[in-house]
């Protein structure tokens, strides 16, 4: 098993959480994390995935100690 910190932002927080330590089977991808958290990606598609502050895609295999940050499309200026 690997323990990671999952952080959710913007619309993903509603009914879920801001940041939590979570445990997943070894070999879990970010896609797996997204499904497990149940965040509403159909309504608000994934905009940005960061692992330890670096952009990654859904196929990234999480490692012990990672911080997984999930954002819907956001912007401003």
């Amino acid at each position, binding site marked *: 098993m690997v323990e990671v910190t999952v952080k959710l*932002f913007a619309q993903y927080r509603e009914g879920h959480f801001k940041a939590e330590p979570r445990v997943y089977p070894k070999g879990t991808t970010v896609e797996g994390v997204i499904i497990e958290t149940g965040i509403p990606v159909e309504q608000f598609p994934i905009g940005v995935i960061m692992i330890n502050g670096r952009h990654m895609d859904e196929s990234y295999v999480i490692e012990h100690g990672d911080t997984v*940050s999930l954002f819907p499309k956001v912007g401003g*200026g």
Partner: protein
Amino acid sequence: MSDKIYRVNMKELNYRIEDVPEEWMGLGGRGLTSTVIAAEVDPECHPLGPNNKMVFAPGLLSGTIAANSGRNSLGIKSPLTGGIKESNVGGTIAGIMAKLGVKALIIEDIPEDDSTFYHIHVTKEHVTIEPCPELVGKENFEVLDAMLERYDKKVAVMTIGTPGEQRMMISNISVKDPKGKLRSHGRGATGAVMGSKKIKVITVDAEKYKETHLADPEKFKAANKVFTKALQENPISGEGLPAFGTNVLVNIINEAGGLPARNFRYGNSENAEAICGETMADNIKARGGSTTHGCHAGCVIQCSQTYNDEEGNYLASGFEYEMIWAFGANFGISDLDLIAKIDNLMDNIGVDAIETGVTFGVAAEGGLLEFEDGETVYKILSEDIPQGTPLGKIIGSGAGNVGKILGVVRVPVVKNQSIPAYEPRAIKGQGITYVTTPMGADHTAGYAVATNILNSGGYIDPLKKEGQVELSRNLQIASAAIDSTGMCIFVAFPALDDPACLPALIDMINARFGINLTGEDVTSLGARILKTEHAFNLKAGLTAADDRIPEFMKYEPLPPHNVVWDFTNEEIDSFWDF
């Protein structure tokens, strides 16, 4: 009737209403203001002297029903940067000027008698220029109330507070918005130039205006429908911005390690959660207020908001990311309500959120006050600056000058203008925009954050150099063109990802004027504007050596990614190879 140029001379205290010269016909907004400044202002003039001018111009589509077309441009030579400045703003001014047929309002020279300030009132037929001693020393909301008492409540108002009267480098020109709150012609000490011309307030008549003329109303309506749909269906302009405002950026920029903290020492802030857009939206929900508010009529994005305190009393509106970053992350105030109180105070006196916030960061670095000490910030802004005490004058001089006065090395400015809320070391494309734009450090000139961080318009790794110069160049050219249309810069989000968006925008311009611009024409317009601005700066004495990042960013690695600014001069200067 065709549009006219309204030209006011502050030395003679008179005006002329002129035909629009042929070569200015197809221009609006930034395209027009930068062209007029380049044509009529001596680049070597003192920005606060008689030979500088102010050029106000609505965008090409302002005054029409086009969604989000209510942005107004102001052109000056900036006393802060020593170069050309285009500052654009929402509010009601652009739509009203366009409907009145004011293609541009040009203000020249300064009065010989500098013992008082003047009020300029523009109507279709006349311009009146009268002394207004009763308004001298008043701040913006009081001036606004006085104008609303005198004119129809829809009257457009542009005003300066006491910092503008004192020609401070942090001063803005404040512009009335549809709800009677204020937006800002910000950056570059615009208020100081208005103060140097002894103008306290400019009003534009909103009673006798007509609708703007459309060459092809049917085509215009159809294109506007497509354009509006693109804005509303884009997840950023249609959902994220209305729900969380621009402040939604705090968390994503912080997570990416690009949120400047403690005067640009760190790329993360411990205050992020306390000040972020999600917290702000939760507070608004719990306390009443509103997450949506348009800065101009016809806005369908509604990124602005009304923010109340715990008792439900109004604290601020137009409470933006840059402001919250500057005082929350960069200066270290963790109390969002206190930042809102400071925001409203700054609206009232008319000072720039970025320049003022970064100045306090440099002042804290230099020991003038402590980081996090919001109460002292409030006191300086409410007492020292309006009264013009020596401390007020020092803070009012901007980050670059305060850095010199205090002997600080870590001074985050480019061309003497404060760097906004994105760390150039960790968001390198944005850094290229800061150093190359003729405006001095400015995030809106070419918003590379979109592609470096937000996955808009593709993705280019923010920590690597590859592709950043080209990205910034393309965005700066597009932004110069968009700034000429009167469109809000946030149309860039759908424009980057929705192929229907830009053609609809161009269709609207064509239908408005009965012309046949192509996408290529619009790109070449943007390129021409940039080159005009760059040429002005070179003649003003700025050189490639001014297109540089502050040196400390080259040798101080920025946590958490421990990155430095590593572009060579040749790489930066290749920006202008187009």
